[in-house]
């Protein structure tokens, strides 16, 4: 059954990356004096680490929480292009809306690798299995992180946080076999100086939009297609 297969796939390196990151998040929430319920609600219902971290950092400063919402939402704005890119692979069934809470970097990145090679009738089941497993791992790790926070040293927290970029680097390296993905990765790398120059809340999104758009236009140029002449498919 494809659902179980996807659950097993999520329990390898993806689970390690998720667990490490959310463990660190749970510890960070405990460090600013917020409860386990807040940590869990943030992990499972926001389920987007940059935004979560922006918010948890802001609540540590008096009166800083509400103004930080816009920055945190902007940091998570990549959900929009991810959902646009993923949805056509999930089929036409209304059940595809079950996938909504699971759209996050790890399930999305794996889905964009796996779904094109699966029969259409298996794609939604695969994503739900992978997404639910990753989501549960994230929740469990957040609880553990919140509980063990007082025992974590700074270097342990740093190591846990580094698992995530390492994992994404491996995902991206696998993606570069396909030319459009390779161009997107190169575009993102070239736009990285923007991350270092712009305000943190929206620097990552700006780099992604600039790098990704240039990569897309580069691909359009190479294939001789005109972007402006194409309308949204209304089939």
């Amino acid at each position: 059954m494809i659902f179980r297969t996807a659950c097993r796939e999520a329990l390898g390196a993806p689970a390690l990356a998720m667990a490490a990151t959310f463990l660190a998040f749970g510890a960070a929430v405990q460090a600013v004096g917020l409860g386990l319920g807040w940590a869990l609600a943030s992990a499972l219902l926001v389920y987007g680490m940059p935004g979560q971290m922006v918010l948890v950092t802001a609540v540590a400063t008096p009166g800083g929480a509400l103004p930080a919402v816009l920055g945190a939402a902007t940091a998570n704005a990549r959900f929009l292009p991810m959902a646009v890119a993923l949805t056509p692979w999930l089929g036409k069934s209304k059940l595809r809306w079950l996938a909504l809470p699971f759209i996050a970097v790890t399930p999305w990145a794996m889905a964009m690798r796996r779904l094109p090679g699966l029969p259409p009738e298996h794609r939604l089941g695969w994503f739900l299995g992978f997404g639910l497993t990753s989501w549960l791992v994230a929740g469990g790790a957040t609880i553990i992180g919140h509980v063990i926070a007082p025992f974590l040293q700074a270097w342990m927290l740093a190591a846990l946080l580094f698992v995530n970029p390492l994992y994404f680097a491996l995902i991206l390296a696998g993606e570069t076999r396909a030319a459009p993905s390779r161009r997107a990765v190169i575009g993102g790398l070239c736009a990285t100086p923007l991350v270092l120059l712009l305000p943190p809340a929206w620097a990552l999104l700006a780099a992604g939009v600039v790098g990704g758009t240039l990569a897309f236009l580069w691909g359009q140029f190479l294939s001789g297609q005109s972007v402006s002449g194409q309308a949204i498919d209304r089939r």
Partner: protein
Amino acid sequence: MTGADLALLLLILAGLALRGGGMLLAVRLRPDHPMVRWAASVALATLAAFVAASVLAPAGALAGIPFAARLAGLVSALAVLAWRGGLLAPLLAGLGVTLGLAAAL
């Protein structure tokens, strides 16, 4: 409800709107539609920029790991990926090298 609770609720609603809006926008598009390919390109580029920034100039606790250790960890992970494939072994190798160098430096 405290300010932190209200902020969290607003962020949850924003995430719902972003994910739901993306799904609504794409519901009638094919995977090869230019808008879908553009969105995938933006999402991948965002991820690449995140990885590069995390290695080159991270913020917060991650900055406690020396640059040489972060870079060596990344290179090791990619080398193991090229050598034997998979994800878990390269990930553990990269983390091991990072931690070993961070302790030594």
